[in-house]
Each structure stands twice: as C-alpha cells, then as structure tokens.
C-alpha cells in the first residue's frame, strides 16, 4: 500500500516547506521597533511596511510571521495529539471483537453529533487558570506564559481525533484478516505484540496522510476560538486571531482591508497546501474519501 512519493504532491510539499522556513527565519530580519507599538497606526501597505500596520502601529508582516509560528505549532501539535488518540482508539476498536468494537464506534458517533467545540470552550475556561496556578506554584516559569497555548493544543487534539479513529479502525478491520496476522497468531504472538509489530507499522501511511488533513481543521478551530476571545491571547498572535482582528477592522467608517487580506492569504496558502498534499498522498495509497 505504500508507493513512491507522488509527483502531484511535490509542489504542495515544496510550498509548505518554504512557508515553514519563512515563518521560522523571517522574524529574525525585522528591526526590533517593528514588533512594538508605534505611532503609524493603520498605515496601508507601503515599502517600509509591506503588509501595512495594525491598530497599534505594529508591522503586520512581522505579526503574520510570528502568528504563523503559533498557528503551525498549534496545528501540528494538536493534530499530533489527535493522531495518538485516534490511532490508539481505532486500533483497539478495529482489532477487538464485536461488542466492544460496536460500543466504541457508537461512542464516536455520539461525539460526532454533539457540538464538541462548545465543550472545548468550557474546558479551556475551566483548566486555563488552574494550570497557570499550578505552574506558578511549582516554579515552571515557561508554562506560566504559555499555559493558554498548552491548554489550547491539548483541547483541540482532544476533539479532532474522531475521523482518525474511524479511518484507523476501518483499515485495521481489513489488515487483521491478512494472512501474516493469522500466521503471527499461529506462532503464538500475543494480542499486543500483533498490534504493535504487525498492525501499527502498516497503518503508518494512512495515518500520516490524515495527519496532513487534520492540521487544517485544528487551525480553523483555533481561529474560531480566537474569534470568541478564547484562543491565543495577546500579545501572542496566530493567523486566527489576526483574522479575527482583521474582520473587526472592516467597518463602514474605516476599512483597513489589508488587515483581513494578508492573514487570509497566509492561511489560505498553508491550508490549500496541506489539503492538496493530503489529497495527493491519499490518492497515491489508494484510500477512498471519508
């Protein structure tokens, strides 16, 4: 089921690579003053500020690059957590017998139909301050400032694993019927050994493909939370929070269009890249749409 790296995937992969590099290295080239509030508020794009400035006179391009770091971090880590949960869940459901499998997948169905983001709002609100308190009590300084980010990543990972679980389960159901699994069973290998040594390695391809498709939904969910003021907190920014700011800046009196346009472009290029990469890879390993 694994093939060579498909040609159609190389362009999106290249574009994404460039995006990641720009976001990582880009901010180093900016003078320090660009990050601080300045007198030039709402300046339209010009040669000094390629993407204009925001409400506080900060350079939008710099904020976009720094926001990109956060967005990608949230997207990748959140999707990775969803991958861990979803793979474990799907693997156990798919490899176990009738009633447990039924119950587990019924649970996934139910979770699909409840508004999960709503619970995440409650969850973030409940645990953010607790984590902050705990962090400062134990002297984990790094955690105090970024506790919101940690909670955000955790909670987004917790809600995005359902699709992964379904796909892994489906794949496990077909894999477990393969002769080599039967052979392993005959050789007397235990349940967990078979899971770990025979099923899991064969799931790696499909899981990685769906990782690229899970990152966009995590990033979009983060944008949703940012809009409601429960996502990344100022002075940190993400593409989602910049977009939310930009959406607020469009009004009849004064429309700072660049505040909406450039974050949209950044988000679009990245997510389009991820989608086309994921779709190209999916086609190459011959998986149907779910």
């Amino acid at each position, binding site marked *: 089921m694994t093939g060579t790296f498909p040609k159609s995937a190389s362009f999106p992969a290249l574009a994404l690579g460039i995006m990641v590099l720009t976001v990582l290295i880009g901010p180093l080239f900016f003078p320090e003053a660009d990050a601080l509030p300045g007198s030039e508020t709402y300046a339209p794009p010009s040669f000094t500020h390629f993407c204009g400035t925001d409400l506080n006179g900060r350079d939008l391009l710099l904020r976009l690059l720094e926001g990109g770091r956060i967005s990608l971090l949230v997207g990748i880590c959140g999707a990775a957590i969803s991958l861990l949960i979803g793979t474990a869940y799907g693997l156990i459901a798919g490899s176990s017998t009738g009633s447990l499998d039924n119950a587990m997948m019924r649970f996934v169905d*139910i979770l699909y139909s409840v508004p999960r983001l709503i619970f995440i709002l409650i969850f973030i609100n409940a645990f953010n301050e607790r984590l902050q308190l705990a962090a400062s009590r134990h002297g984990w300084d790094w955690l105090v400032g970024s506790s919101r980010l940690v909670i955000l990543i955790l909670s987004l990972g917790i809600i995005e694993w359902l699709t992964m679980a379904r796909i892994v389960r489906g794949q496990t159901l077909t894999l477990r019927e393969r002769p080599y699994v039967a052979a392993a069973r005959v050789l007397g290998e235990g349940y967990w050994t078979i899971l770990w040594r025979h099923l899991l390695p064969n799931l790696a391809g499909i899981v990685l493909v769906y990782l690229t498709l899970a990152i966009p939904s995590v990033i979009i969910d983060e944008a949703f939370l940012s809009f409601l003021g429960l996502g990344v907190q100022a002075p940190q920014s993400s593409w989602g929070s910049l977009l939310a700011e930009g959406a607020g800046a469009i009004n009849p009196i004064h429309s700072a269009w660049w505040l909406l346009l450039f974050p949209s472009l950044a988000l679009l290029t990245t997510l389009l890249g991820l989608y086309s990469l994921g779709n190209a890879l999916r086609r190459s390993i011959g998986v149907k*749409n779910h």
Partner: protein
Amino acid sequence: MGGKVIGQNNRRTQFVGISALFLLQPSAFSLQPERMIRRLASLPVVLFCVITITFFLIRLSPGGPFDSERKIPEAIEKQLLAKYKLDGPILTQYSGYLNDLLHGDLRLSTKYRNRSVNEILAQTLPVTLSLGAVALLLSIVAGLWLGAFAAARPGSLAEFLALSLTLLAICLPSFVFGPLLILFFSIKLGWLPIGGWGTPQQLLLPAVTLAIPYAAVIARLLHDSLRETLAEDFVRTARAKGLSEHAVIYRHALRVALLPVISYLGPLAANLLTGSIVVETIFHIPGAGGFFVNSILNRDGFLLGGVVIVYCVLLILFNLLVDLSYRLLDRRIRES
C-alpha cells in the same frame, strides 16, 4: 448488487432529483422499530453524561458566579448562594440539580438576575434555530447543486473552478466572509441590513455566512461520491439503455451518491449550531449563542447547562432522523 436494488426503486418512482430524500415508500416506515427504540434509549444516557460533565467543568474554574470587583458581605453571599441553590456539599447540589432538571426546571440564571434559564432559552432558541434551519437548507441546496454541477462536467474548466471555489470556502473561517458580505451588500450596495433580527432581509446575510463553508463541504462530498458512483456497473447499464446523461446522473446515480451527504447531515447540524455563535456575534443577532459564550465567561453554570442540554437533545433527535432517512434510502442497510 447496488444496481439491481436501485433499478427496482426507479421503476416505481419517477421524480428523482434533489428531492430524493422525500422519496419514501409507505412500507418503509415499518422497519426495525426496535433499533430505533434502542437508539432513543441511549438519549438519556448521553444527556446524563453531558449534564454531569458540564456541571462539574464549570465548577472547576476558579472563582464563583457572584465574584465582582467589590467584595460582597458574607451574609449576602450566603443568601445568594442559598437562593441559587449553590450551597451545601457539591454532590447534594448535583443531585438537586438533576432532580430539578427532571421536573423541567433549568433553574435561574446567576448573571441575568431573576430570569430563569427556561425564559431566556424560550426567547433566544427560536432565533438560533431559525437561523440554523435556513443555513442548513441553504448549504444543502447550494452544496448539492454545485457538487452535481461539477461532477457532471469531469475534466472541464467549470469543474476545476467549482472545486477551487469550495476549497477556498473550506480554508477560511466563516467570520472572514461575514464582514465582507456586509461590506458589499449592506454598505456598498445598500441592499440588505447590516445586522439585527426580525425581518427576512436580516436573516439572509447571516444564513449565507453560516452556510458557506458547509455548502462547500457538501459539494465536495457529493462530487467525489458522484464521480465514484458514475464509474459503477449499474450506471453503465443505464447508459447502455440509451438514457440521456441527465437522466443517468440525476435519476440513477444521484440516489446512491447522496448517501455520504446524508450521513454528513448529523455532524453538519452540530457544526451549524457551533458556527452560529460566531455569526450571531458578527450580525448582532439576539440568539442563544451569545448567551452561551457569556455564560462561560460569567460562570453562569445553570444558563450554560441549559444551553448545552437543549443543544444536545436537539442534535441527538436530529441524528436519529438522519439515521432513519439513511435507512429508508438505502435498501442494502434496511434489509441487512
């Protein structure tokens, strides 16, 4: 095997199209009642879990519902806690709350003093639900149309454009489209009001904003499944009979291709309810979404609980309906 089943259905029913959902034969209603009952029976269990999680999560956040800048005298706070039934050990509070819920009492809001949650929901829920229903309809109609349009023209520029458009709509959060629609239709053209609630014109922009991403998802789902269906044997048979391309797609293939779309309706409804929180904020609509966000920030546990409970009941019932219609449409599931 799929072809045979579909063929039988087709002789009996002539008017298939987007209305395929409503093509149910009377005999179909007799199926598998015990399965439906079993699913209905899971409703209280799910609700119980939802209520419990909400009840304890809101209490996990530090601070109480009556915290404010000024410290309230202890005696008054005690009285307040007693009035809102927030005193005593937490398990007693919890069982008391469950008991009240059983009697249909969602209790008082701790923020909007002297208003009961039942009252607030009775005012705001119809707003959110009508917005959601219109958006649901819009996204289904637009999504099915666009998906079928694209799938009927494989390899053409039109297909490429339609698919690119849907990808664009999926990759941007809906709160990007809201302000743009307002800017264009309300401010530049002056056709529609900027926000508010009450007239059909005020409903249009928010419903479109809410529907855009999900219409795109439906279009892509239908496009993919229709392309897949069109490669199947029964479609070749239909073509061999000399049917027009239109009849092949809309009368034969669409029925089968609709199934993935129908199974997406459940998650779609959940997404619409969540998404309406944002849209209500953008368009200043007095729906339940705004109260929901505020209830979290104000630690208004009973209001929060009320909204969550009502949302979950609605969604579970809706899912049951979807499940039923899925079974009615697909004989293969019905007979197995």
